[in-house]
């Protein structure tokens, strides 16, 4: 077996253990009182992770396009359309896909402009 094959099996097993071991060792969590600091931290972990992931993903987009004005405009249009569509519908698939199309459209429009 090649070293790449061994590495991918080890990385897969390691990633799984990172996910499983804390779950296996936390049987007491379901009985934590609402007022305990640990309970409050764990409850806040979801919104904190989502915020952090959103920031990292949004910053990576214009960075990946060399911070071009078009990519910044596309990100702004995309984020604004998330707000707009979210106000109209609670359907997560629609709130996700429509802004993605808006984002793509900004790039297409920019490429049709003179010099684009």
């Amino acid at each position, binding site marked *: 077996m090649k*070293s*790449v*094959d061994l*590495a*991918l*099996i*080890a*990385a*897969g*097993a*390691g*990633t*799984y253990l*990172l*996910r*499983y071991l*804390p*779950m*296996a060792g*936390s049987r007491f*969590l*379901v009985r934590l009182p609402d007022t305990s600091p640990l309970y*409050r*931290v*764990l*409850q*806040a*972990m*979801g*919104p*904190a*992770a*989502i*915020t*952090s*992931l*959103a*920031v*990292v*993903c*949004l*910053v990576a*987009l214009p960075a*990946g396009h060399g911070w071009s004005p078009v990519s910044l405009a*596309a990100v702004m249009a995309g*984020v604004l359309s*998330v707000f707009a569509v*979210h106000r109209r519908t609670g359907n*997560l*698939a629609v*709130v*996700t*896909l429509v*802004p*993605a199309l808006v*984002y*793509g*459209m900004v*790039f*297409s429009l920019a490429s049709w402009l003179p010099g684009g």
Partner: protein
Amino acid sequence: MSFFSPFQQGLRDSLPIGAGYLPIGFTFGVVAIQAGLSIWQAFLVSALMFAGASQFVFVALVATGAAGWTLVSAVLLMNMRHLFYGPSLLSTLALARPRVPRCLLAFGLTDEVFATAAARSGGWDQEGRDIRLLGLEAGAYSAWVGGTVLGTVTGEQLLSRSDFMRNSMEFVLPALFCALLLECGRHRRQVVFVTLMVTLVLGLWLESYLALVGGMLTGAFAAILPPPSAGRARKAGRQA
């Protein structure tokens, strides 16, 4: 309660994640082949790791000829944040009578699955929440592995045909995170604000995955602090 009803609901919940995973898994398939992996190896990376960004790092390092231990440690360092997802989700789901073993639930706990479950599980029926989570994970996993297989087989020809689709797909996951943030961040403004600021500041100096972990942990611990309004109320009380 039957197994299939909450499982199907979970599969339905996974549609937005699947819409994001399919094209990214597809891109991963293309990149893996370009980096010199075989179709079988690209499939195994997605099937065994199921961990987006770290897979791209893995194939990038393979392309540079990095040693095996470098590959493994880079992946594990990037996925270190997953340590916190399981305990947090167990606390949120508050399962009275779990029916799905934790060893099975743990496998599919990616960023997007965790984010969706953390934001939406409050509205799920108490009975069968773990089965619905399993459905969510199964849908996401199928899209990811399916996308990878498609990418390895047909990738390069399809991506070169439509710039519009390629650009649009870039924004699917950021849009998902923004939408989830609108759903669950409303009542957690202090946590959101601290996380946002810390992630942005750390991102100026650190790799994005480290900024992500730093921002996430600092933001979560901000939940212990009293909200600013409580401080103002105490001050007003003392003045009165």
